[in-house]
């Protein structure tokens, strides 16, 4: 069968073609800062995804570590070696490699947390906007209450409660478990903004006649929400999601820095900064500075992308 109008393949190609030709792509190409931010972000994704191949060392395999290489400064400083580009920490782990693995963890937690809060927030937002009534009031008041608390506080609370619950059980409180708790804690702290935005967009879309047309022919509510309303509310979600990714990475780093995040055995960027800052005043500044710079660069790049997306998708600024 040829790539008919209703087949999937042709449609994807068409979307790609239109995408490359769109206002968004034009505005992207015109903006060198954004292009740079996108390249930096992609480099992070690439480095995180292929850390196993790119990283010159395997910092979390104790058998490859040697304490003789501990606390080496970056390569360009007296006493540094090119084997350890950004120096080593107190256990002889290569800082560059730990940053690669750390970014991977930070990105995984950040992405998963955003996806979690998007699914939760969008789901609650579109249903409460569509159905209304006491269900809507309950969801939206819950969102209001949660918005009065700083999100880092919510994450801290959820994190603490989860640890307390699982502390006595058989479930091992290892690094993997900590990741799930973090994703849940950060994700749950961010859903209200998605719920609010999607609810208000749903209220607008619901009153339009294409929804009425679908109702007249008896399309079920869940299908109207999924196929008609949801795609028309996704623009703002994309923008908030991008900005939220930077925020989630920061929150994860903060929690890890405070010691309630990811344990040092398999550190994220935040954990690296916390572990490193103990050596700051004894002169080994590189142990904490480079992970911190890596975090700043990543968050900055993602934020720049988010800001651009917000402006580019805002019809009032065109």
């Amino acid at each position, binding site marked *: 069968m040829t790539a008919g109008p209703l087949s999937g393949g042709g449609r994807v190609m068409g979307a790609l073609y239109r995408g490359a030709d769109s206002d968004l792509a034009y505005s992207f190409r015109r903006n060198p800062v954004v292009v740079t931010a996108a390249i930096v972000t992609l480099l992070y994704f690439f480095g995180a995804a292929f850390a196993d191949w790119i990283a010159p060392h395997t910092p979390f395999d104790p058998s490859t570590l040697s304490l003789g290489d501990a606390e080496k400064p970056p390569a360009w400083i007296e006493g540094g070696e090119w084997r350890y580009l950004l120096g080593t920490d107190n256990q002889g782990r290569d800082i560059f490699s730990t940053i690669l693995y750390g970014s991977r963890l930070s990105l995984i937690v950040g992405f998963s947390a955003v996806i979690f809060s998007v699914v939760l927030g969008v789901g609650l937002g579109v249903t409460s906007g569509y159905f209304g009534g006491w269900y809507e009031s309950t969801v939206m008041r819950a969102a209001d209450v949660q918005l009065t608390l700083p999100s880092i506080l919510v994450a801290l609370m959820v994190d603490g409660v989860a640890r307390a619950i699982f502390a006595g059980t058989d479930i091992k409180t290892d690094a993997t478990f900590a990741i799930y708790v973090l994703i849940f804690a950060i994700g749950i702290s961010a859903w209200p903004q998605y719920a609010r935005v999607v609810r208000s967009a749903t209220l607008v879309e619901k009153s339009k006649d294409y929804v009425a*047309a679908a109702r007249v022919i008896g399309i079920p509510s869940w299908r109207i929400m999924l196929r008609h309303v949801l795609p028309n509310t996704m623009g703002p979600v994309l923008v908030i999601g991008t900005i939220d990714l930077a925020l989630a990475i920061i929150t994860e780093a903060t929690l890890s820095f405070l010691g309630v995040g990811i344990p040092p055995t398999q550190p994220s960027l935040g954990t690296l900064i916390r572990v490193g800052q103990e050596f700051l005043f004894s002169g080994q500044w590189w142990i904490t500075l480079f992970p911190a710079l890596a975090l700043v660069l990543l968050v900055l790049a993602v934020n720049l992308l988010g800001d651009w997306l917000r402006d580019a998708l805002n019809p009032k600024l065109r």
Partner: protein
Amino acid sequence: MAEMPLLQVENLAVHFCLPVPVAERAMGRKPKVLKAVDGVSFAIGKGVTLSVVGESGCGKSTVARLIAGLYRPTRGRVAIDGHDVTAAKDRTRAIRRRLTMIFQDPQASLNPRWRVRDIIAEPIKAFGIAGDARETGRQVDGLLEQVGLAGADGEKFPHEFSGGQRQRISIARALASKPDLILCDEPTSALDVSVQAQILNLMRDLQDELGLTYLFISHDLAVVNHMSDRIAVMYLGRFVEVADAAALFAAPQHPYTRLLLETIPDLGMTGRDREAVAGEVPSPIDPPSGCAFHPRCPYADKRCRTERPELREAHSGGVAVACHAVEEERLPPAPAGGAADG
């Protein structure tokens, strides 16, 4: 006419409760009630066009939406071909397939993220009319051609079309389920006059071709004159006059109908002063006592202010009017001809 009418509406009404702030509700204030439609009865036979005209806010669109099942009526009954469909659970797939709706705003009535092909295919898929994807595509092509578009237009998105073309797409979607009854909610109000004529002619041609029945909602008397077999004039949630189109334009009975017809520009009255239309439509939240039209009616007397007139058969020829003055025959004779030759 012994034949059962395709659409029968009896005493249909919908009242909306206006929201009251929590504080006031706690103090025992009752919510205000908006009687958007307040007891409307009519029937449409197969292949006939009934138009509902009235000023904006009189509830004419609400009538169409009630019949479409978009609102739940407060009271009354809607039957399609003898099947009671007042309750949502009675709207079976087989019944839903037989009625569709065309909306006013061609911008909002098509999902901007869907291709035209998918928009038109939605009813076909929902009712399982075509066997497979290939047959669906073939039917969509056919529908597009039927409304004067090309099959290739199916690949486009709604924003790539003009208002008139979009309304053609709406019509194609409405035809997709092979319905008997189409509820047209001001289908041409958002269009240029030149395009209006094209769309109206298309709708008439389709009616002749497919034997469609239209409930046609409009505020534009010229459009209504072009389209209708019968006309119902609506004022503040009620019908004030129902008559055959020709009779209504030739000899309008109700003072409100006369007032509406006066507003039509007409070559015959060049140079003559036109009577100014006094007042506006009162708020349906707080309607006038008695006949809702009495504050604007030049013939209103004490009875009109206190007693609400019922829709009654006035003359021979199937004209029904809700007016005390007509009943008591204290109205001057209908203005001769006037705008009738539209």
